[in-house]
């Protein structure tokens, strides 16, 4: 008797929860709908009629994007840049995060402060000096300019450090007593164990650099090393207003691979963020 009341109640609660989440989802998804809707609307119809409804289906915007933007080149550049940043970050940040969280050495506290401070620095503040530096080394308008400044990622170190702190210190001590040097501990224990955290920051790094517009627009001169958001800005004019249709088509084409990737990697991402080390107590 009470059982069935409980079940009914539970169902009601679950139903209410779904309803509330759906209401929030409208807020989360509305901009995406507008983006899609605009991208499939003929340019001269973009502002006509009810902007919530898809009035007039057209592929014109996509046709223009494909015609005016070397999308394949952008995608390849994007993949190359994002992958290179990720690999660089793994090589640089994982050992550093390990040392900063699990090794004792003088200067560690200073190092930690540097990382945290660097994380908080707005990168617009440092853009010009970095530009000049890259320019001195002839790196403007190269892939390197898009990659190098982001390899020493304070955020990645911060994330990884949180992860390493959640692993019992004894695991690392055990490795030491088992005869592993710091370097071999890193290769044999730390890297394999950090995989979920690496996946997590990898996805976040991928997302932010794939989508980044400010920095590439700052250091690039032409399409040679351009990444996908350039396609959006090709249709943006500061003074004449934007060409919304092709712009939204380009935005859709930028976001799409990420969304598909996220839907595929979702479970791994959550698991990674959960920072499960497999160490069960």
């Amino acid at each position, binding site marked *: 008797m009470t059982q069935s009341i409980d079940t009914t109640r539970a169902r009601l609660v679950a139903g209410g929860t779904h309803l509330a989440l759906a209401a929030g989802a409208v807020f989360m998804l509305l901009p995406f709908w507008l983006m899609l809707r605009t991208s499939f609307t003929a340019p001269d119809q973009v502002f006509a009629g009810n902007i919530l409804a898809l009035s007039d289906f057209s592929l014109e915007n996509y046709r223009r994007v494909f015609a005016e933007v070397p999308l394949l080149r952008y995608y390849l550049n994007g993949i190359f840049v994002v992958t290179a940043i990720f690999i660089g970050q793994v090589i640089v940040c994982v050992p550093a995060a390990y040392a900063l969280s699990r090794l004792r050495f003088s200067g560690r506290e200073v190092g930690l402060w540097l990382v*945290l401070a660097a994380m908080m620095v*707005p990168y617009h503040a440092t853009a010009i000096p970095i530009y000049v530096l890259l320019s001195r080394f002839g790196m403007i308008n190269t892939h390197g300019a898009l990659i190098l400044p982001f390899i020493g990622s304070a955020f990645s170190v911060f994330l990884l450090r949180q992860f390493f702190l959640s692993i019992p210190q004894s695991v690392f001590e055990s490795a030491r007593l088992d005869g592993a040097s710091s370097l071999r501990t890193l290769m044999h224990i730390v890297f394999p164990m950090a995989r979920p955290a690496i996946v997590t920051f990898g996805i976040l790094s991928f997302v932010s650099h794939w989508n980044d517009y400010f920095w590439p627009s700052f250091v690039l001169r032409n399409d040679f090393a351009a990444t996908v958001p350039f396609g959006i800005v090709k249709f943006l004019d500061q003074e004449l207003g934007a060409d919304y249709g092709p712009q939204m088509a380009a935005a859709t084409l930028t976001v799409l691979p990420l969304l598909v990737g996220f839907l595929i990697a979702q479970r791994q991402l959550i698991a990674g963020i959960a920072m499960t080390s497999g160490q069960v107590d």
Partner: protein
Amino acid sequence: MTVSPAAVLTPIPAAPTGMGPRIAPYLLVGPLMLLLFVFAILPCLLTLLLAFFDVDILAGTIRFVGFENFTRAAARGEVLNSLRVTFTYILLTVPPSMILGLLIALAINSLRRGRAIWQAVYFLPVAATLVAMSIVWRWMFVGRRGIVDQTLGQMTGLVDWLNSPVLSLPAVAIVGNWQQIGFVVVLYLAALASVPRHQIDAARVDGAGAWHRFWHVTWPAIGPTTVFVGIITSVNALRVFDTVSTMTGGGPSRSSQTLAHLMWERGIYFFDIGGGSVVTLVLLALAIAATALQRIMTARLEKAGTR
């Protein structure tokens, strides 16, 4: 015929270790520190130094002016205004993101079915291209014709957000929340997944209501995540630029001009590098204060973690 297992386990000497344990840590952090130094610290120091100079990049002249940049900035009053705006923005994004994010995570966590879908829906904005999305949002907030005015505006009478000195910052903050809530949700979902099931069950058996279960079991268990989320959202708030730039340009009349935007406007848009450096200085001071705060807050948690 059988050799005793114990007999097999004769002592073996340790292999010689390559790197002394004393240098190893420095080798491991070295590359990071070098990169941070070159791409973050050095540029910052340079910028700070420039706060005391009048720099004309075009003419290639640089002139020491002492505190003149500071007194001018004070006279203009824009730094104080931006400080106020930045703090308001922090208030408008950090607590809402954290509270809503936690509530959404709790809601999703309580479900048996459809968790993956909701998770994806709420995470979508995190993966979206902010440049493009800011444009869409600006468009949604457009006076009269925009969705916001046609729906929310009709109900509340709050219209033409981007054009209003009172509502432009909240409009930017709404987008800030929209963008980061998904990330907060995912972080909290991860933390909730690691709350010991048996503790919650035990509390349930003890007759603790939903609120008490949350307050006495769940909340303490997700404490570290809360600190982490607090830091991430605060960092985002301190650095906010893209949305401000695309949506309001800091206006109208500087009502939504955060420090990061003011820094850009002064240093880059107005070609006033010295004046921009003064703003950078304020921003860095805030960043350091935030860093100190976070170190104090997490010191205890970390002490527990090292043993």
